[in-house]
């Protein structure tokens, strides 16, 4: 088909967590510009399997931009050159015919490489488990307005809850800091009445867990917000800092 692309890929190959990895060059031919980036890797993997080579391991699940599983650091940016999308929503028309594309895994001590481009993001799960919940059963949906919540707070909470935990914030941050992720998970509950009883214990525990997992520190470069596929706001980090400060001076934990 005319308009199809030939590309050179430099892909990070690494057998397992402890093995040495390196960038390996691959040529892919006749790629449709309407393919998603992941489908392009599928095509490459089929070629590799036919040749008897090991296919490239990479994370993916829903392929509709909502699960947070796909990652990939593409040509120096998490989720590639476009703003506010996941890699599965990135199409090959965003690239030029004949272009060289470098594909790397998320780089962070807290996200060890499982294989090739797949990293272990369970540090995020452990941070959630340290406090990103409410300890009561909320039951069935109540009558509307039986629990009044300001419209602004509801909107802000919802916006924070849009975080899909993909880890692009950590990947983009020059310090591999997880502040945007943690602040979204803190904020979505801190803004709602159900989150109040555990508000300060939560922020205290989640920040402690974040540090323990070895993520870097926030220097407010804003790279996380710029690369977040869900547009999570830096104001969540300010809210978390505020709550963390209060937790430090005014709560008994």
């Amino acid at each position, binding site marked *: 088909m005319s308009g199809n692309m030939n590309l050179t890929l430099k892909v990070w190959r690494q057998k397992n967590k402890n093995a040495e990895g390196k960038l390996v060059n691959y040529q892919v031919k006749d790629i449709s510009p309407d393919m998603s980036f992941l489908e392009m890797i599928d095509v490459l993997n089929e070629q590799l399997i036919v040749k008897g080579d090991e296919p490239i391991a990479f994370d993916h699940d829903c392929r509709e931009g909502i699960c947070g599983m796909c990652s990939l650091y593409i040509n120096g*940016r998490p989720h590639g*050159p476009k703003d506010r999308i996941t890699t599965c929503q990135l199409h090959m028309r965003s690239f030029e015919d004949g272009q060289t594309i470098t594909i*790397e895994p998320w780089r962070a*001590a807290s996200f060890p490489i499982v294989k090739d481009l797949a990293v272990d993001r369970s540090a995020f799960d452990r941070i959630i488990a340290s406090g990103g919940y409410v300890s009561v059963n909320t039951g069935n949906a109540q009558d509307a307005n039986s629990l009044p919540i300001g419209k602004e707070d509801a909107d802000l909470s919802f916006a924070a809850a849009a975080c899909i935990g993909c880890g692009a914030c950590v990947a983009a941050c*020059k310090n591999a800091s997880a502040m945007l992720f943690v602040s979204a998970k803190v904020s979505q509950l801190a803004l709602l009445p159900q989150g109040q009883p555990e508000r300060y214990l939560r922020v205290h525990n989640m920040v402690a867990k974040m540090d323990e997992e070895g993520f870097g520190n926030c220097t407010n*470069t804003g790279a996380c917000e*710029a690369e977040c596929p869900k547009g999570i706001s830096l104001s969540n980090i300010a809210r978390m800092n505020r709550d963390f400060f209060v937790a430090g001076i005014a709560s008994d934990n």
Partner: protein
Amino acid sequence: MGITGLFLISFLMVHCFLNSLIFINDGGETFNLGAEFMAKNWVIRAMEIVLFGGLLWHIIQAAILTRENIKARPVAYAASNPSANSKWYSRSMGLLGTILLIFLIIHLRHFWVVSRFTDEITSGRETLFNEMKEVFSQLWVVILYCLAMVSLGYHLLHGFKSAFQTLGWNHVKYNAIIEKTGVIISIVLPVLFAAMPIAIYMGLIK
């Protein structure tokens, strides 16, 4: 970093105001009066110790955080395009700060050590204004001070608003004011500071 940073900015403002007294161009009379007041007032003397403490704490924190941050990403990206998502000066605070530290050591040697530990000024035989004229008669000093002020400008451009974000002082109503104040401070302070050696070197301040 935020609290110490804002504290150091408050010092810079006082410092800049007092030194700007040379622009009155009265042969340094008003400036020397100000310098004498600062040298003899015990509150200011006490604050000097707090200031050095704040500066030291700012540097120590920066060193600790930088170490942790390097540890958090042991393997660097082969291809990286950071300018796509952040400003270069926000990522270069350590470098800008190191330039400022080197400048500061030279600057303290030029004025603080001379005014405090040699008896020429303490005995009243010489004034700080004359010392300033002498130091700024050297071209390399003027160039060094100007370069350091460029560093200071970019350091503050990120540092001021970053401090507010770190401290959680963030509100839609005030964010724009914080942002604009930061930009104004990062331009006005370094420009005034740089104008001092330039004006003296060019002989505009008599």
